[in-house]
């Protein structure tokens, strides 16, 4: 009985969330995009996440190279460290890690901000002033996310490769020019885009979830906390699960 109720509730929620997304898409298609607001949101979301993304990416690139040095040496294939680092980062690690960190930072902020506006009647006040909150508050956040997450991903890839480079050159004693050359040869068009194209899906999913949870937040400051944690948890789970499916699809059709 409880299970049936949970399923019914989930279907109803999904329906509401889809209507919400429909409203957003309609606004975007009609060109109701506030460029100033988008830029402001891009700045806030980007600045908020960039430091932690740089730190974690650097560490990830470095650890890939450390592990690569150990494992590849066993096969006598130490010179492939550069490829291992570049492929891992570009195809999987950077898109997924960046999306997860972005969910926890920018996503949480979006839900908490919108949720607070909801419980303080600012959302209703917007409507009372003759302004559509979807157009004014939601669309700019969605679009900013769609533009910022790819940029952050590229930053993460570059910094991660730099981390791998330092380990490769100074720990594993691979000649610098050779390492750079190997890296540049390793990343082909498909490698880059098979990872990069996933980021746009993640951006839509994260911003949709976080905006929606903020938009339906109820129940005062307790509610803001509850809906924000829910939004972050959903975002991270959806990123990880959808990544598996997207990866399978991309590899099947593309390589």
């Amino acid at each position, binding site marked *: 009985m409880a299970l049936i109720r949970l399923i019914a509730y989930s279907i109803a929620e999904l329906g509401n969330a889809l209507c919400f997304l429909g409203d957003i898409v309609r606004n975007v298609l009609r060109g109701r995009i506030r460029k100033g607001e988008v830029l402001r949101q891009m700045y806030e979301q980007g600045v908020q996440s960039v430091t932690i993304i740089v730190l974690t990416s650097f560490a990830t690139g470095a650890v890939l190279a450390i592990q690569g040095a150990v494992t590849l040496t066993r096969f006598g294939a130490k010179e492939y460290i550069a490829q291992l680092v570049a492929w891992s980062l570009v195809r999987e690690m950077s898109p997924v890690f960046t999306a997860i960190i972005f969910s926890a930072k920018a996503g949480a902020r979006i839900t908490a901000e919108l949720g607070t506006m909801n419980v303080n009647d*600012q959302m209703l006040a917007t409507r009372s002033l*003759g*302004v559509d909150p979807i157009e004014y508050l939601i669309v700019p956040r969605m679009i900013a996310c769609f533009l910022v997450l790819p940029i952050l991903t590229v930053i993460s890839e570059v910094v991660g490769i730099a981390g791998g480079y330092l380990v490769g050159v100074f720990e594993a004693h691979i000649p610098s020019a050779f390492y750079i050359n190997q890296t540049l040869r390793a990343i082909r068009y498909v490698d880059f885009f098979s990872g990069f194209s996933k980021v746009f899906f993640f951006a839509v999913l994260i911003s949709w979830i976080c905006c929606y949870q903020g938009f339906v937040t109820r129940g005062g400051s307790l509610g803001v906390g509850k809906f924000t944690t829910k939004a972050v948890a959903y975002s991270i789970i959806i990123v990880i699960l959808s990544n598996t499916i997207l990866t399978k699809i991309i590899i099947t059709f593309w390589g």
Partner: protein
Amino acid sequence: MIRVEHLTKSFNGQVVLDDIDFEVQEGEILVILGGSGTGKSVLLKSMIGLVKPDSGKIWIDGDEITQLAEKELLKIRKEIGYLFQEGALYDFMNVFENIAFPLAEHTDLDKQAIESKVKNILEVVDLEGVERKYPSELSGGMKKRVGLARSIILGSKILFCDEPTSGLDPIRSRDISDLIKNISKKLRCTTVITSHDIRNALRVADRAALIRGGKIVAMGTQAQMEASSDTFVRAFIQ
């Protein structure tokens, strides 16, 4: 003119508004009185389409708003000033930006014109020199004044105020009540105020209505309310 006909609203089976019927004349100030949780906010929100009633009709200057889509409601709301209980100011904007927001959204005024309008309205609500402050730096009474300024800056002909005196001390309650009355009379606004504060309500109201158990149990001028023989009305007034 505003007319509410047979308005009914319940939440999860609990009836909050039960067949509410009343009219507000052009330029009149009507105060809706009632204890907390009696549905005053729900009633006022229904009157600008922020809450969809279960049944009944609401006429605002010839438009029946319960049948309108959100897009049309957004247009109608530009003509209506609505003061929320806690002011509902944008906390990412300072006072100036909050008050200028409706002008920036709905008019073609240039920067200077907007600045002078905001300055004027701040004088009207008796708040000067707070333009650069953020809502978190304001007292409850100041927030309500800024909210009032923002709600009337487009020159609305209708003004709704939800519990303008709640959370304020007696002197500030009286001041803001008088302020709303003065503004309403000066702009010739049709005004509806909700309140549980009988003393200030009767100071400013042309007529008052008392709401209880989802129904309007008494309605009339100050004298009529005071002369009422209904025991509940008497108890509420004293």
